[in-house]
């Protein structure tokens, strides 16, 4: 029996579906992310778990209790917002202790818990400061501590890192994962950032237009995207038009050059199938046992860890990410190159 279960959850705003037939089981202690573009219904789903929105249909079970229509302040669910939402009139310590104060815990218990939480987020010296005296990253840590102080049954985070700059974002991401694992708390995390979702989660729910596209581990989502949407939204993907398709032989022509691919019978093909390849699957040169294309380098972008090429093959353009290696000079613009990719790395959609 899962700890948090959403069954056939739908939500309509004035007849328009924001979320449709959402089904999910979250195990106790699991970290699940909702990943999808803006407007796909992630926040709405999260807010139904928190109780800020009521589903139009469906049920939500939390720890075997039906909480579908329970008031948000009765659910014992911790929530972290993109905007931090710290109480400006309360100090850091008072913010963290607020939930326990509301529960009329005695002062000693509150103080002990606040100290424990401050230790967890490494902000012991800031207990008596007001939110405006802290940086964005610190404020969000306090918000996290405040949500955790009530020992919630589930921790919900709605794009908690979106308002922070890149470096802090990565730091705090690690911090969130560390704390989540230390406490073993069941967590639902909303983000539109695939890197965040993939790096943090036990499982990822990819959403599009109110529907679930795929649920799986980051490994599954990235390597075995089940829909074209997932394949395109998670990671980079080249989608190239083909001719001369021979399904039996698993070959096709890409700008006149023969390409071998792996075809899964279960996969539904569209009317005009295209070949999908991730940019990082390419290697420079003609490798044995691989598909080899020869083309012309259009652009070279040096990104540090990788060098991103745009390669033109018979009028088709695709991107290829090569690992940067100190002893290998990247190709130059205009150069004719041969470039390879493994048979198992490409598929038809």
């Amino acid at each position, binding site marked *: 029996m899962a700890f948090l279960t959403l069954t056939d959850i739908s939500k309509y705003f004035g007849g328009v579906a924001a979320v449709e037939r959402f089904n999910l089981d979250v195990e106790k202690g699991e970290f699940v992310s909702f990943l999808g573009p803006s407007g796909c219904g992630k926040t709405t789903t999260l807010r139904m778990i*928190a*109780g*800020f929105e009521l589903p139009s249909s469906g049920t939500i079970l939390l720890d075997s209790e039906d909480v579908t229509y329970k*008031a*948000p*302040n*009765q*659910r*014992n*669910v*911790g*929530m972290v*917002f993109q*905007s931090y*939402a*710290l*109480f*400006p*009139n309360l100090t850091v310590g008072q913010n963290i202790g*607020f*939930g326990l104060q*509301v*529960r009329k815990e005695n002062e000693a218990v509150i103080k002990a818990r606040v100290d424990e939480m401050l230790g967890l987020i490494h902000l012991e010296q800031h207990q008596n400061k*007001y*939110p*405006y*005296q802290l*940086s964005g990253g610190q404020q969000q840590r306090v*918000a996290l501590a*405040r*949500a955790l102080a*009530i020992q919630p049954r589930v921790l*919900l985070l709605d794009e908690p890192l979106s308002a922070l700059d890149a470096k802090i974002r990565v730091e705090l991401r690690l911090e969130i994962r560390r704390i989540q694992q230390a406490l073993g708390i069941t967590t639902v995390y909303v983000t539109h950032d695939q890197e965040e979702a993939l790096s943090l989660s036990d499982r990822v729910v990819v959403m599009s237009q109110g529907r679930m596209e795929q649920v799986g581990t980051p490994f599954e989502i990235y390597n075995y995207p089940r829909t074209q949407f997932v394949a395109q939204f998670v990671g980079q993907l080249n989608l190239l038009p083909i001719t001369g398709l021979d399904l039996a032989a698993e070959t096709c022509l890409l700008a006149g050059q023969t390409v071998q691919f792996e075809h899964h019978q279960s996969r539904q093909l569209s009317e005009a199938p295209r070949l999908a390849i991730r940019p990082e699957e390419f290697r420079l040169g003609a490798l044995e046992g691989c598909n080899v294309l020869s083309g012309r380098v259009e652009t070279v972008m040096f990104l540090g860890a990788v060098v991103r090429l745009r390669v033109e093959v018979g009028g088709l353009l695709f991107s290829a990410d090569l690992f940067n290696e100190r002893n290998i000079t990247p190709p130059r613009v205009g150069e004719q190159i041969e470039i390879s990719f493994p048979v198992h790395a490409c598929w038809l959609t």
Partner: protein
Amino acid sequence: MAAAMSFLPNLRNLFFPPASSQAKDRGSKRGASWFWMAVGVLYFVLPLVATFDFSLRARKGVLSFLAYERVFKDPAFWKTFIFSLEMAFFTILVSLLLVVPTAYWIRLRLPKLRVIVEFISMLPFVIPAIVLVFGFIRVFSGAPFFLTNTSFGTNVLLVAGYTVLALPYMFRAVDTGLAAIDVRSLTEAAQSLGAGWGTILFKIIFPNLRVAILSGAFLTLATVIGEFTIASFLVGINAFGPYMSLIGQNKTYESSSLAIISFMLTWAFMGLLQFLNRGQASSSLAGAH
């Protein structure tokens, strides 16, 4: 007439000189703005100075604070002033309890209604107080209320009337204050931590509206202290407004000193407000980082 006409172009040249060297241009522009500034200051300050000067001349031939002394020694001054202060206090209390939850709920759940409520709150600017007080007396002095039969009932009516008068100031101030905080997120954060509506209102919303509430309260106080129409119909000379008016009609020097006193009071309130505002402004500025 002709002289005035011929004078006009010169005036225009003085303030909007024809194009000349840039430095000279800038210099004369600055001169013009100083001039207008001075005109403005004189416009406001001269009557004040004149009134103050006049209020010092109660004793023939010398300047003295005699008029002030007389005012402060008049028991009616203190009685009416304190009465109006009390009325102001209850007005502020009632209008806060009315306006804060309303404005909060509108921001939180009924944003579309905001325009309508704002319009309603502005009605006291349009409807004369005399209409309001006649209406009050008509409705509430007869059965089944008989409010004007007791002084308590009359005071209740007075506070009710003042609450209406204070509505534009209160609603504006509180609504502006609410706009400055993220009402929805704060509410939801508090809810998820287990707080009910009472806790949210009194532990989160009210404290974060401190400055807004103070400014609304001071404006209400200033309005109530000097209010004449409603007070004179309901409680007559017991209130400060009618008292001031009576003094103004009968005692020349004392009325000037009263004007100066009430002016000082207003300024003191405004100064206090500015002071409190400054703290808030710098803190919210720091919060933006």
